Every structure is written in structure tokens, then in C-alpha cells.
């Protein structure tokens, strides 16, 4: 799968349980004309489903989420429909651990 759609834009799926973060991230990402946010999901489960459905070029993933957290979703995505995933999370005391876990599982980058 080539990166970008016909228009050459990078198609991104934003996964975050905060409506505010979904909107803010979308606004920021789309301020770059090369980027298009094609969908948002509010927890890991929905994220997995939308990855399968929308086939984004890149996924941004929060860690703390209800139902299924970002790490579990990441593991699942890497197993079934591998796609670059960027973990986005503010640090917790366990932040470092989570970063390592995520990178180990195949996340491409980690924005604290």
C-alpha cells in the first residue's frame, strides 16, 4: 500500500478518548495540507475496527482509554492489520515503561 491517497495526502486515524484531544489533534494535523484526518475513534476497540475499515496510512494512539487501552489496541493492530502507529500520551509515572512496551510492540514513534 502506497503512502497517501490519490491527492497525495497522508490519511490519519486519531484514537483518543477525549473529545477535546480528538478535535485539537485533528485541527493541528490538518493545518498541514499534506495531512488528512480520515476518522477518529474513542477507544481501542473502535480504533481497531476503524483501522480495518478505513485503512489509514498512520494511526495516532492514546494510551489511557476505556474498554481497551492503547497498548492492547496496538498489539492487536500489529497482529492483524499492521500500520504505522504513533503513540501519543502525556506521561504518567509509568510512562517510561509504557513507551518501551509500545516500541517493542511495533509503534513507530512515541510523543510524550
Amino acid at each position: 500500500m502506497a503512502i497517501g491517497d490519490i491527492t497525495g495526502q497522508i490519511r490519519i486515524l486519531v484514537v483518543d478518548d477525549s473529545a477535546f484531544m480528538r478535535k485539537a489533534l485533528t485541527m493541528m494535523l490538518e493545518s498541514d495540507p499534506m495531512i488528512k484526518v480520515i476518522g477518529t475513534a474513542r477507544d481501542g476497540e473502535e480504533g481497531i475496527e476503524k483501522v480495518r475499515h478505513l485503512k489509514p496510512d498512520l494511526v495516532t494512539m492514546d494510551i489511557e482509554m476505556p474498554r481497551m487501552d492503547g497498548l492492547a489496541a496496538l498489539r492487536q493492530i500489529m497482529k492483524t492489520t499492521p500500520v504505522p502507529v504513533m503513540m501519543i500520551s502525556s506521561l504518567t509515572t509509568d510512562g517510561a515503561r509504557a513507551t518501551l512496551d509500545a516500541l517493542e510492540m511495533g509503534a513507530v514513534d512515541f510523543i510524550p
Partner: protein
Amino acid sequence: MTNELDLQQDEMQEIIDDFLVEADELTTSLDGNFVRLESTPDDLDLLNEIFRAAHTIKGTSSFLGFEQVTSLTHKMEDILNKLRKSEMAVTADVMDVLLSALDALKGLLDKVRQGDLSEEDLSEVLGRLNAALGDSVDDDTDLPELPVVGLTPETAVESPTEPTGTITPETVAGAPDEKQGPAKPAAKKAADQTIRVDVERLDSLMNMVGELVLGRNSLVQSINRLQSELDNDLALETVAQSATAVNFITTELQMAVMKMRMQPVGKVFNRFPRLVRDLARDTKKQIELVISGEGTELDKSVIEEIGDPLVHIIRNSCDHGLESPEERLAKGKPAVGTVWLQASQEGSNIVIKIRDDGRGFDVDAIRAKAVERGMISRNEVDRMADRDVFKYIFAAGFSTAKVITDVSGRGVGMDVVRSNIEKLNGLIELDSVRNEGTSITIKLPLTLAIIQGLLVQCEDEVFILPLSSVIETVKTEHSDIHYVNKRPVLCLRDEIIPIVNLARVLRRGNDSFILTERPYIVVVGLAEKKLGLIVDRFLGQEEVVIKSLGSYLGSTEGVAGATILGDGRIRLIVDIIGLFNTAGKIR
């Protein structure tokens, strides 16, 4: 990563507004969840939900550079993280610290809302949080908090020069709430299709729909009149067909707008667990609050008004109604007092019931007080049923009377509660059994703006009765009318219903009337009471938009408002509660 974004001021303001809406939702859910956590400290799902709420506020606030909010929620999050990993126990002290941190957080959010960027002194609450975290050093080695992506604090500081204003956009009713943890699979799809809408827009939409309903009524009526005048006019038939479509769509539109304004009453109920917890601590009582039916939906305007009266009633129940644990045990009651708060829908009404198992009212003390204040004679009051005697509690100034506060311990301002409820066209009832408890029932209309009305004619005047209060209409035989104590009653299927002449009651005239051979009677109901209204004719049913009569008309008891009918004439809408009161006085 700084200043990547060149955000316009209004865009920035919008982002801050969004942040505040979400933060408010989360703090409200924290309020309730903290209290729940105290009673179920082992509920890991609950702990996770609480943790996520604090975490989200921390993340989003750091994103916008509200550093004080971030550092406060960061500490809260540290404690919550320890709690959910069982490194710390959920104790009353820990909860106190968390709750005071939550209060401080709300204060900070209010400052953000007002565009006040000055620093608040958080040293006390942060100190308490640190103390609760104990001597564990690892929080000091914590990495400094970084904004998630580069929106610098300066951006946030520069832009919001004007206050955010007081209008808080609300979540559109019916949409799944962000703060609710596990969503049902069905609700999942809808999640991303939720938008937040400014309440002012909804209000003006509602207003316009109201005007549209009036216009529609007038259109339909004109066409009906023309149809009876012009027979088989082809052009008119075409217009009539279009009117039918307009009619149908208007009704749909009205329903849709009304649904948009509906919100679950849980929005109000959410804050009560915290209220009750604090009251219990202050009064050294043990109180359990049992809430049910929080999903029941009400019009937004009703939701806004119902909060204060409920706070008042619940506070009274906890403060004065429930006894101290010792007193309760001495009476053979469980030490823990219970307050029940339940909401349910009955027809086109919402019923909210607040019940406690406390000491109840001393009905004889109320009787004595009513006589002392010259509200009623001793003789009369002794003949009154207890239930009716309790009504005096709602009289202005009555409840502040010292005797009542001493004897029954019931607090101030039930008349304020009553007037609040009346403003909503609601009904309030109180019942109490000595030493068993008190229950207060509030009935509210689902919506205030548009009602289904029954048009009746009575003595050359057309009145509108709210259809929701009409139980049935009967065309009766003269022989069904009997007299009890010289007052007319209707015998309807073994039930005795007092009857009055509608126009006479509203005009405060004497109630003598001549019955026609086969009188028409509308039976209306209010709570457990029924009343038969004699009318001359039934004219039909119409959707009416209630317009307030304003205050300059003075006493308008028995009249809820006015409306413009399809024929362009102004008609009065009967206020059933007022009608019962007036009828009661005449009888």
C-alpha cells in the same frame, strides 16, 4: 515544536471552550464517582474510570498550557494510580484530600472560563496531596510535564482577552456521553457524530418552531374554511395538498427540536452524592443516598431550574429529617439513614420523588402553627386530613417559624421550593409519617413550550385545557348528576367526582349553574384528585404554544398563559393546578 500552528483568536477561544466543556463533564463525573468509590473501594473499573478522567484533564490542560490545572491533576493522578494498583488504600482521609483537590480544580477551571490568567495559590492543596502520597520519593524523580504537542503556553495566554461568557454549550441530548465509561456497542457508531451546540441556537430554534406551529395552525384553518366555501376548487385542492405536507413536516420538526432539548435528569442528580456525603460528614450522621431513574429525560429548561429546589429538599432531609445514628438506634431503626431520589416518567409528566426514613413531621405542631398564624380556624384544621395539613409547610414564611424548626426540625424556605416548582408548571406534594419519614413528590411537565390542548367552549368563551391533564370527556345524563352537601357531583362508574362550571370558576363567580339536558363534562386530574368541568361544547384539539401573560396582569390564578389559535384569536390556557385551587376555594 513551538508555534507550529497559527491559530486565530476565535479558533483558540473555541478550543478553550471545548476544553472547558469536557473538563466540566469530567469534574462532574469525578464528583459522583469519588463518592461511589468510598463505598466500593475495590471497584477497579470505577478506579480506572476515575483515573482516566483525571488523566484526560491533565493531558488536555497541559496541551493548552494551563500549568496549574496540569500540576494539580498530575498529583491527583499519582494518587489515583497508586489506588488502582493497590499501593494505597481508599480511606476517608485520602478521599477528603482528593475531594478538596477536585474543588480546587473546579476553581481553576472557573478562572480559565473567566479568562483570569493569574496564578492561584495551590500550595495548601498540593501539600495535602503530597502528604497523602506519603514519603514515596518516586514522584519527585518524575519527569517534568511536557505539553503533548507544541501549542505553547504563550499562545494560550495571548488569545483569550475577552471572558468566555456564561453560555456553556451542552452536549446534545441523547448523544452518548464522553464521560460514561463502557459504551454500548450500539452507541459506538453514534459517538463521532455528536456535535456540541450552543444553547442559544437551540432556544432560538425552539422559538421559531413555536411560531411555525402557530403559522401552520392558521394555514390549516384557513384552508378548511375555504374548502367549505368553495366546492371542488382545483387550485385550492393543490394548496390543501401542500398544506398537508407542511402540516406533517411541522409536527415532525417540532418533535425533533423538542428531543434535541431533552437531557437526562442524571445531569442534575450527579452532584447529589457529593452533597450528601459532605452533609453526612458535617452533621456526623450516616446517610445513604439511593438514586434511581437518572436516565429519565427532561427539557433542558426544566433541568436547569430543578437543581436548586432539589438541593434544598435533599439538604432538609439530611439535615433535619434524618436523626443521628444514636437516636436512630434508640428508635430501633438502622443507624444508617437513607434518602431515596428517584425519577420516572408518567405520561407526559416527569415524577421526581425524594423520600427519607427520618423522623417525619409533627402534624399537630403544624396544625397549631397554622391556627396561631390565623391561616385557618382550629375547628377547620382539626377536620383536615394530615396530607392537607402538610400543605401549610409550603406557605410563605411558614416554615421559618421557630416552632416548626424546633418540633419537626424542618428547615427554611419550602415556599421557595414551591414557587420554583410552580414556575415550571409543576406540582409538589408532601407526605410524612411521624418517625417513619417524609416523602416529597414533584411532578413536572416534559416540556414547557408546546402542548396539546383541548379546546372547549363555555359561556361564550373558548378555553384551552392541557390534554395531558384531561382524563376523559363525557356526555352525561342529567340523572348521573347528584348532590352531596348541596354541591353537584358526577357519578361515573361508581366514582364520585365533584363538578364545577369552568367559566364560573375562572371568573370567581358563584358556582350556581343550570344544567342542560345532557351536559358535557371534561374530567381533569391532578395528582390523586379529579374534577369535572361542565362545558357547553367541545371544539377540538390543537397544538398550542404557551405564551406567558407577563406579570402586569396581576393575579391570574387558573390561567397558565395565552396562545394564538389558527383563527388568529387569542385564547387562554387553563392552568390545572390553579383551577383546582380556585375550585377548592369556591366549594
